[in-house]
């Protein structure tokens, strides 16, 4: 069965979507990622969509679902590399991907994850409960 590979780097999972996904493949990715987060106790997930030529409402919803499921499993998600034409189209379509952290490229996305996870662990020591 066709699958999108998930790479592990320390406490983070990395995914690069390089194919024009049909809906089932997107659902498989959602399930696989959720399982891997729980298996390895991942603290962050980075999804690189720089090769995606379109993001329609289904793919947008899949990304939002992944981010929500990851959050429930105590992991942060960042979506990186969205093409400008895709961003323009998504907003016109009516989807602004609320609740999804984005970054321009893999590098800034990784920085975001390191920072967020570090902040979160620090705030846990203080006994503060913060959610963003």
């Amino acid at each position, binding site marked *: 069965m066709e699958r999108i590979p998930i790479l592990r780097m320390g406490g983070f999972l990395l995914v690069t979507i390089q194919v*024009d*996904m*049909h*809906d*089932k493949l997107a659902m498989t990715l959602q399930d696989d990622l959720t399982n891997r987060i729980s298996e390895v106790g991942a603290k962050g997930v980075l999804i690189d969509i720089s090769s995606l*030529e*379109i*993001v*329609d*409402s*289904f793919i*947008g*919803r899949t990304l939002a679902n992944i981010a929500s499921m990851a959050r429930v499993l105590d992991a942060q998600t960042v979506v990186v590399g969205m*093409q*400008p*034409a*895709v961003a*323009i*189209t998504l907003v*016109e*379509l*009516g*989807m602004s991907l609320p609740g999804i952290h984005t970054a321009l490229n893999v590098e800034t996305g990784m920085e975001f994850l390191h920072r967020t996870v570090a902040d979160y662990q620090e705030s846990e020591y203080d006994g503060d409960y913060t959610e963003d």
Partner: protein
Amino acid sequence: MTGTIQKTESVPIKSGSDVVLVRQRVRAWTSEMKFSLVEQTKIVTAASELARNTLEHGGGGEAQLALLQNGARQGIQLAFIDQGPGIPDVKLALSDGYTTANGMGLGLGGSKRLMNEFEIETEPGHGTRITCIRWK
């Protein structure tokens, strides 16, 4: 909707991979017609939403691509045809947030915003035909 049809292509929609095929064919057409990258992305995204509707709500059908010529102006016309249950309330179906399957309810209204002209012909029990055009 005016203009003479210069060229047509029909793509059957029977499975999820056909939705991908529709996207690829529409991409090839819009690229050949020299739409800008943003316009191509909008048209392909609208085609993806409508093809999925044809599959999920119409039980499959077909997409018809047509090259329109209106004077000096060219446009791409996309028609999505199914023999499914039809849309009982078109106005409601076009409103954002309305969903019958488990989508986000942005398919119809969203694709209407991405195209220049948009028409729905539907009859309960007899299927749906959605025709939309984007002019260059």
